[in-house]
């Protein structure tokens, strides 16, 4: 018995929901970024799983989309963490509940 596409999609959906849970319910900015990274990993898993189980296209589109998505995720993480550091320097906190004023 080999795993079907459904099982991969269920694992990926669970990973996405856990990432959403982290992004929605934690108050610390870095936890929110961790949640976003989890959701992106779930999306990449979906791309590669659909590539593997579908009819094989030439060129291998799913794999390439996953590679580009990883590159974009790296850029997102760099900018997000730089924002966290900049906000921390300014407000001396990373609790997103306390960041409620513009032009601080």
């Amino acid at each position, binding site marked *: *018995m*080999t795993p079907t*596409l*459904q*099982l991969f*999609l*269920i*694992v990926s*959906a*669970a*990973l*996405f*929901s*856990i990432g*959403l*849970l982290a992004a*929605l*319910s*934690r*108050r*610390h900015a*870095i*936890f929110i*970024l*961790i949640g976003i*990274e*989890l959701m992106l*990993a779930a999306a*990449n*898993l979906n791309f*590669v799983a659909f*590539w*593997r*189980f579908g*009819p094989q296209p030439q*060129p*291998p589109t799913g*794999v*390439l989309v*996953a*590679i580009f998505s*990883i*590159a974009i*995720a*790296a*850029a997102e*993480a*760099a*900018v997000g*963490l*730089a*924002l*966290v*550091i*900049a906000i*921390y*320097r300014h407000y*001396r906190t990373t*609790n997103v509940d*306390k960041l409620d004023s513009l032009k601080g």
Partner: protein
Amino acid sequence: MNSVAFLVIAIITLSGALAAAALPKLIHAALSLVIVFVGVAAYFFLLGAEFVGLVQVFVYIGAVAVLIVFTILLTRRELTGDRGINWGGAIVALAVFGGLLWTILKTKSLAIRAPQIEPLTVKRIGEVLMTNYVWPLQCVGLVLTAALIGALILVMEEKREER
């Protein structure tokens, strides 16, 4: 494709993800995130996309996880006010998971086994990246450069004001 390997990786990945979402200490959550990335990379290997798995290990574990740990160490003064998982987020996440699960299980065309494919070589990926996908590749390079310069400027600007 081995279903025992699938189950083991699923358990490791999902427990790592739960730990990353729910642990009270940030540094523990960041290290649990590394477990999740290793699990997802193992899935890529299982699915036959070895190159993506290696890229996942290099980029996520080598760069993103280290970046997160550095940021935690640079901002680690105040951790109060984080009450962990709250009910609203849990309900929304469960609703999303329930909806996705219902849709996945209801779609019968998804219950398929993996077809036999010829292995995807790195040579093939390189050829495709240099022919069909050369413009997306250049755009991603531009985005990465802009993001890194932007990150540097974001972090430097505040210092200049304080002077």
